């Protein structure tokens, strides 16, 4: 049973211009996104740059103004309470940022950085706060002598771990991870991903994992949504998307992932070119006359694809 639903989320930015600087057009950054989140699951949000995946994450947590749409959290409509200090929603939904360095105040010590959510949401005494911070450091596998250090004294992987420690400080139900490992090296990335899985198993967290790296998403996520121009083109379980992609955009995206088998590279190149040619040829069938993605239609219990009715009958 899902504990959180998002229905028909829209984030539009006005484009101003003309004589009186009136709104002449809109950018549809997020356009009618509907999602559900279950406990302990990881949801992947994949798309190219500019597809609106980060905006979706920010709108959910309240860093972005929502044009229309509702967010329900444990049965309650929390759309307008996203930034209220006293709401449970604000405490239970936390975020991990891509660039951990710029997400931390350079003039604060680790102690204060980790204490900030605790001071905001939990009324703890000084001793309790200290104890909790030490617990947090133990969770992310760092020693206690880092408490008085500043963010710049850490490496990228360590900073990302501190970012995670800060996000889990108030025992959240869900963490929105916006490209948490894209800035990290391969071996450090492995560390952070393992670690995210560990705390998920331990605390039953849900993740909304936003990434452009389809390899990482495949490794991490149970459910995946592919986004294009602010709309979902395909959603489904990991197997639905990777084994049985239906939308031409998904196929194109999957065929472009570099594979680590050099011996099959020429075959893959041919497949890729086929898909690309197909994409150029059949594109119009998958987008309406304005280049917009069609609404999602179910093709199985878990798998939804954005297709026009005519196309769907062909399957």
């Amino acid at each position, binding site marked *: 049973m899902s504990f959180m639903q998002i229905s028909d989320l829209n984030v539009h930015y006005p484009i101003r211009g003309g004589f009186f600087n009136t709104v002449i057009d809109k950018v549809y950054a997020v356009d009618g996104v509907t999602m559900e989140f279950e406990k302990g699951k990881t949801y992947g949000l994949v798309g*190219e740059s500019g597809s609106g995946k980060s905006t979706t994450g920010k709108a959910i947590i309240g860093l972005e103004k929502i044009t229309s749409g509702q967010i329900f959290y444990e049965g309650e409509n929390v759309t307008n309470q996203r930034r209220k200090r006293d709401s449970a929603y604000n405490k239970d939904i936390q975020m991990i940022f891509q660039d951990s360095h710029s997400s931390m105040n350079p003039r604060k010590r680790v102690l204060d950085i980790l204490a900030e959510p605790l001071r905001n949401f939990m009324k703890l005494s000084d001793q309790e706060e200290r104890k909790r911070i030490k617990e947090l450091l133990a969770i992310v596998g760092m020693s206690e002598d880092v408490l008085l250090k500043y963010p710049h004294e850490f490496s990228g992987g360590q900073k990302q771990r501190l970012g995670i420690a800060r996000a889990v400080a108030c025992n959240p139900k869900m963490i929105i991870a916006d490209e948490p490992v894209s800035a990290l090296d*391969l071996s450090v990335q*492995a560390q952070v991903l393992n670690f995210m899985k560990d705390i998920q198993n331990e605390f039953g967290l849900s993740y909304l994992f936003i990434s452009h790296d389809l*390899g990482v998403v495949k*490794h*991490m996520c149970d459910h995946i949504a592919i986004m294009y121009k602010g709309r979902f083109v395909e959603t489904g379980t990991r197997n639905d998307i990777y084994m049985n992609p239906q939308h031409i955009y998904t196929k194109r995206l999957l065929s472009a*992932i570099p594979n*680590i088998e050099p011996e099959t590279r020429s075959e893959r*190149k041919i497949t890729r*070119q086929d898909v690309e040619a197909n994409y150029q040829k059949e594109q119009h069938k998958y987008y309406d006359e304005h280049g917009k993605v069609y609404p999602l239609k179910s093709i199985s219990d878990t798998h939804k694809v954005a297709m026009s009715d005519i196309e769907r009958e062909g399957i």
Partner: protein
Amino acid sequence: MCLHKADSGRNYADAKLIDKYNYFSDYLIKEGGDCLNTANDLLTIRNLTTSFRIKETYHAAVEDVSLSLKKNEVLAIVGESGCGKSTLATSIVGLYNTVNTKVTGEIFYNNQNLTQLNDEQFNSLRGNHIGFIFQDPLSALNPLMRIGEQIAEGLMYHTKLSKQQRQERVLELLNQVGITKPERVAKQFPHQLSGGMRQRVVIAIALSCKPSILIADEPTTALDVTIQAQILDLLKVLQSETETGIILITHDLGVVAEIADRVAVMYAGEVVEEAPVQELFTNAKHPYTRSLLNSIPQTHSENERLEVIQGMVPSLMNLPREGCRFSARIPWIDASAHERNPQLHEIAPGHFVRCTCWKHFHLEGEEGGGTV
């Protein structure tokens, strides 16, 4: 215009020169003693060391690297951030701060030792014989110049083409890198183009004078996968047309598998393994390469734990200067397994591995040590 600037007639088999280079024993072993006849090699790097000055002492970011690049070949240099791969690239083309940087060793291109060149000589090479593709296309382009002018700039310095001919060449280049409507794009400014288009422009600039060597420093890191695939395919096509030798610097092993012919893996300023691409992905030997390959999410089934390398990449000032530099990351391997002064050993034709510790290294779940 001369296409093949790498003079194939060059020959170091001059007795005096052989004497002079005999002390590069490491290199001689590598190439079976035949290295001095470098008819096939476009670029030969020998014992290159690049050091940066930090508080009066020089710290080597690239140490004792010997590599060669052949015509029509893609040599990939792989490593994590801070391993010295970009420093290696900038050392080749002399894009370093001459006050705080010391470069020793030799880089031979076309009978010239690039480390000995002055600025003027370098300027006639850069952009002309050696093209460079930068990671971030936006900062590599001048925001105040039109695309067409930027591409024509190199042509103006290095060729004797008339203005009219330059214009034609610009449009030809834009066409070549797959830009539709080149006339329009040539009149635009960088900010009007998308990331993929900008990278294509940067590639067009690098290719403008038909270089014999192309150095690409993370050319696709800032791009989406679909554009990345297009750019890699484009590089391959252009290479087959012009026989350019490409040095590809990247941290993405997927890209390496997609395009490279030969791979050199760097760790802490040294090349730890060098092999043809197939060999590297199927039969990697060095503990670092193997751990790295094993930490790719793709190689694992879902929900499985990823391989993690213990410890961290040491920073420049704390690099271990003696013994095996990777030993601190694999502490369970006995010190006697490492060489005191690790060298590259040829364990199969064209496959070099540094140090001997790989014989004792095995990943979790494997039996015994690695065998040849």
